[in-house]
């Protein structure tokens, strides 16, 4: 019998992971008005990069982030500068179709290189550690995941609200044309933003890879959960995505308690119910992207 607390913690950890998945999507949708179909596959890419790094260096999965994060940042920067910036000005269809092609390429390249077998990342001792509060046993990894997610969100929020860079980001999200008129270099801004998004994704990827075995075709399902987190929380709201992810994770874990195969299904139901009740999402500001 699994206690309620353990279920909740499991839900919170999964939810935090989904919140991380959704962060990048929320930013690229809100600021660049771009639908990145390859988002899920990029998460999987991050996990496989961690596999490579841990294989070569023998480091633990989390330590591999020291290399994987900067690497993913670079990948994001290049991807945006060389490819995605070309479709940014146009309608959302263009970015959707372009990233769709990218998604197919990524999935199949990963399959060629790593085969279709599932893999996992080793967390090392961290996965087994836990500490006691009274009669409750709290795992270190779930707590660390939740804490890391909150930290990333807080950092992003502070960046957006307090820095010059953040002002530019908000300006471009409001009115890209007017932003250019006051000298904002939106091309470079987007490149930096995608770089950061991918760096955040790599953290999520490693945490996800520790928790769940993954394969090259795991991308679309990650994308779906990321999208659900963003849409559930409402477009245009950063913390909305955080709570959207949390709710999704909790719903899935609860659903899994009822019937092991129906975790995701329960999450989908909650998603649909919320959207029917509130078409703009929980914290959406109603602005049409």
């Amino acid at each position, binding site marked *: 019998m699994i206690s309620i607390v353990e279920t909740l913690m499991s839900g919170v950890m999964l939810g935090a992971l989904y919140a991380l998945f959704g962060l990048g999507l929320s930013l690229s949708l809100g600021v660049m008005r771009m639908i990145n179909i390859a988002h899920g596959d990029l998460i999987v890419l991050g996990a496989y990069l961690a596999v490579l790094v841990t294989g070569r260096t023998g480091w633990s999965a989390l330590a591999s982030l020291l290399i994987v994060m900067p690497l993913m940042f670079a990948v994001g920067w290049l991807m945006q500068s060389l490819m995605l910036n070309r479709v940014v000005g146009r309608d959302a269809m263009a970015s959707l179709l372009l990233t769709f092609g990218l998604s197919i390429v990524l999935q199949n390249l990963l399959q060629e290189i790593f085969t279709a077998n599932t893999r996992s990342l080793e967390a090392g001792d961290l996965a087994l550690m836990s500490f006691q509060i009274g009669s409750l046993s709290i795992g270190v990894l779930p707590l660390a995941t939740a804490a890391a997610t909150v930290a990333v969100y807080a950092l992003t929020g502070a960046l957006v609200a307090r820095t010059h860079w953040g002002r530019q980001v908000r300006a471009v999200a409001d009115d890209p044309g007017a932003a250019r008129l006051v000298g904002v270099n939106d091309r470079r801004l987007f490149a930096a933003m995608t770089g950061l998004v991918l760096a955040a994704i790599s953290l999520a990827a490693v945490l996800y890879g520790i928790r769940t075995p993954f394969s090259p075709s795991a991308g679309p399902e990650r994308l779906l959960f990321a999208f*659900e987190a963003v849409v559930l929380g409402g477009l245009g709201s950063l913390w909305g995505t955080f709570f959207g992810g949390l709710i999704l994770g909790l719903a899935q874990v609860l659903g899994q308690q009822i019937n092991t195969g129906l975790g995701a299904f329960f999450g989908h139901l909650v998603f649909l119910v919320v959207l029917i009740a509130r078409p703009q999402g929980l914290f959406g500001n109603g602005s049409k992207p």
Partner: protein
Amino acid sequence: MNTTAPPASALNHRAPAAALRRMAFAAALCGLVVVPWISGYATQRLMVEVFCVATIALAWNLLAGYAGLVVVGHQMFVGVGAYALFSLSNTFNLNPWLALPLAAVTSAIFAALSALPLLRLSGPYLAVATWVLAEVLRIGALNSPWLGAGGGLPLEAIREFDRAARNAGTYWASLAVFAGSLLAASMMLRGRLGLALMSVRDSEPAAAAAGVHVLRAKFLLWLAAGVMTGLAGSVSYMSTLQVTPDASFGMNWTAVALFITILGGIGTLEGPLLGTLLYFVLRELFAGYGTWYFIGLGALAMFVMLVAPGGMWSLFNRRGFLDVFGIRRRMDTHP
């Protein structure tokens, strides 16, 4: 390129061109009808696939290109149509061809019901919601013993027909669905609905202010697309004789529609047809290369979107001169 409708006298329906068009279609149709008598089963099955995929791509394009409704869960219509056909035919012991219209009605009901919550959503909200709904249906079917769960359903009543009749019948059904959908789409778009949709595509608030009943236009299109796709799904699985949740509610259907849109361009009726043709040519030539075939497809998709965002059809059709279905309207741009 966005156009507005000039006075009726200036419309593109010059009598000789329209008559020529009709003759051309009639001739093509006649040619296609005789296929079962002049080719083997393999060709027929391929053509069934081509017609079904073309219909689905057409329907997807109608929604995305003319109503601005980008749907990532288009497979929900496919699965609903397929399962409707199989379960209706099995339950009532119906001749599958007679069950087709019933499957169409089921698809229409599903489309109408799904439109109620979904059409209140905009942009990405709608796109994701359709995907989630498709997943709900897939997982639902997977866990429903009365729908055969993971193994799916066979089409029992079709066993009464011999192979030749089965193949020919399925072929003609797919041809009928495709030709009918094409006809319905072009008639819809040439009429007031087409005007309404184009105005919505240009500027929804302006269209609404001008008295266009935006929601009604979208609803009608949603209904049409749902029925077209449902029928195509029914016939497609009639051809494979077995319907399963993962295949009929799988992302592959949307992926193919997306890919065809990339090749053929969006916002035209010719686009999806050209795209379907190109897709199947590529598949027949290169599918043997396994993952590299898919990598090639993906790379091609990216290349086209970067270089010719209007789809490959736009490369031949720079100024919109080619208007095969006669639905384009022109604006006089000389001052």
